[in-house]
């Protein structure tokens, strides 16, 4: 689906090459045009739209069926009828095992392989932008997409919950109740947590994207790795491996719903993701610098 919709490729490349011609502040303008290209694509909006559907479907289902009995379904689901704010949190919980990694996989896996398959990669490299700079810009664009994706789920979820259900002070896991403002801040913190959680996967996707000129391959491999990592994380026999999996802390955002907030998981998660970013970033640099760009 990528090749059809990327009909703006060469134009975008021209713009990028043209603007990044000057040395120095070129990186920022390169990033700007990269983001412009990303968010001009219909595919990007389709991905964000699919993510927005998750909270909408959850909210409609609960609204129409009257909600599950206590203790059934994903955590927080049974609270939605009392407080619409929980739609966003429930949607994040539902989206994080598969839907979010899938969309990240599409964007990160397409980063280099997509350009290569369109034959636009060499135009990008003709400019004195440098390969490392191009990688950095591509990664930054993928990271911005991570922010957009998680915010879409949380914000759409909160808004639809607001529209369909009564809202009010939010009961935390600890049993304490916080006001609406505090709760909204916590939801933003959850979005930040999930964004950080996806940064390691983005780096893996970028590396896979430098390996091939077939973007679908890199996209699928990235999404499959996320699923495999979660399966490994569920096998008790491989417990020694669990703390090293990039999916290990993905569901740890619940710690932001405690009182007082437990920040340990946030820090551990950030450190782990930084490790994945460094390793796979370095691999991507090594591969991309030695790669023969023929198309």
């Amino acid at each position, binding site marked *: 689906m990528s090749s059809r919709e990327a009909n703006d490729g060469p134009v975008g490349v021209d713009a990028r090459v043209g603007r990044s011609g000057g040395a120095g502040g070129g990186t920022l303008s390169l990033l700007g045009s990269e983001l412009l290209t990303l968010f001009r694509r219909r595919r990007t909006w389709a991905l964000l739209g699919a993510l927005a559907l998750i909270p909408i479907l959850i909210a409609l289902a609960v609204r129409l069926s009257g909600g599950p009995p*206590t*203790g*059934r379904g*994903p*955590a*927080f689901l049974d609270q939605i009828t*009392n407080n619409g704010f929980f739609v966003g949190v429930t949607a994040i*919980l539902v989206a994080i*095992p598969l839907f979010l990694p899938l969309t990240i996989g599409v964007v990160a896996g397409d980063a280099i392989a997509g350009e290569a398959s369109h034959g636009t990669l*060499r135009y990008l*490299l003709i400019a004195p932008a440098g390969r490392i700079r191009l990688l950095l810009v591509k990664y930054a664009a993928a990271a911005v997409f991570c922010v957009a994706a998680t915010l879409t789920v949380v914000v759409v979820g909160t808004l639809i919950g607001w529209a369909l259900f009564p809202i009010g002070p939010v*009961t935390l*896991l*600890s*049993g*304490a*109740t916080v006001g609406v403002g505090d709760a909204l801040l916590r939801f933003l913190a959850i979005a930040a947590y999930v964004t950080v959680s996806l940064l390691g996967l983005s780096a893996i996707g970028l590396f896979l994207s430098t390996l091939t000129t077939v973007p679908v391959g890199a996209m699928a491999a990235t999404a499959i790795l996320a699923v495999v990592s979660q399966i490994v994380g*569920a096998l*008790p*026999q491989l417990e020694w491996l669990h703390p090293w999996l990039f999916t290990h802390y993905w*569901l*740890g955002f*619940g*710690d932001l719903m*405690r*009182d*007082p907030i*437990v920040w*340990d998981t946030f820090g551990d998660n950030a450190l782990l993701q930084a*490790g994945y970013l*460094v*390793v796979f*970033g*370095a*691999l991507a*640099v*090594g*591969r991309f*610098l*030695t*790669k*023969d*760009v023929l198309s």
Partner: protein
Amino acid sequence: MRARDTGASHRLTRWIPAIVAPIAIGVGVVLVPLQANAAVDLPDLTPAELLEFAASSDVESLSGTIEQRSELGLPDLSGLTGAMGGGGGSGGGTGGGTEDFGDGDGDSGSGSDGDAAASATDLDDLISLATGTHTAKVYLDGSNARLQVLDRLAERNVYLSDEGAWIYDSAEKAATHLTVDQAALDALEAEAQAHHDEARERLEAELGAPLPTPEQLLDEALAKLDQTTDVSVGTDGRVAGREVYELVLEPRDADTLVGEITVAIDGDTGVALAASVTARGADEPAFSVAFTDVSFEAPDAAVFAFTPPEGTEVTEHAVPIPTVEELEQWKAQAEAESQAEAAPGDEAARPVVHGEGWSAVVELPAAGVGGAGFDGEAAAMLGALTERVDGGRILSTSLVTVLITDDGRVFAGAVTADRLLDAAATGR
């Protein structure tokens, strides 16, 4: 492009970051804990001095994170327990089941589900406690205390204060309020103190000398302990970044499975920061509890405040406080019963302890484990857990062995299977 007209060696140099990054991270992963464990040398203490030091600890307030780990060597039963938990699993993960807090009080919210479901979750709880890892936060300030067990996307809390105790379970949305009549408790304490003083005066008058000091008592207790256990001070270490003494207890008894028990005592404040039980012959502890970080500053008063949130099922439970007369009445009653127990026939009604010290074995008579027996899933689970031996089934973990004889008696202890079979055969 550029890459095409460079030589192979140039190509290799471009892979350098890709090679260096994982190595740097690996070195960091190895070195940081090494540095944290750098040699610790606290002033030497004898076991008696160490115990005295720990007893004199006067820490009023602390907050920290505790990690509890069990590796009892049970077969993995997550498949079975998942089935038994019914729809109770709250959102993914192996540790995410509906785990109640300890005593059945937290269960009262489940209402009409019946005892079968309750006992299934209880069994689930036991197994989840015996396998895997739990993290909890502890807050302590004077008479206020809070234990916050962090489950995945759920939480269990115990709040203690002068006004009573709250137990809150977020997965069950149930809160239990335990209240104590403070005036009655104070009266009981005062009365007990008076009784104590009276008894002491009487004893001193009888002995014609003052009673032994706490130090003397400690020495005596240690001497007694020494007959069964080797008590020593191990190498100083580090727990939660603090320098600690290590108190090591090693059973002298050959029949027990317990290899050693270690307690880490903070070298500065005398607070116990970690404890672990290691099975005989094992390298890793089978059960351990340790602070992963701790601070001795008073926590914010807000962490102790609890009001049950809306929509929570609240169970009020007033704990009756007996008066001293009642206590003595109970004691007399219990003594009378234990004498009556000597009569044959009534013996089967209560647990019996065979042997003493480390190799003690507890026998539950057939009626004690419920004549209803095990059926369906419970029986399947029992079959998976235990192995057939001559005269019954044996459940063996690295620390505890349980023998269920064919006639329904249950023997349990931190001992070898042979010792249990022996106890079952000889009744000793």
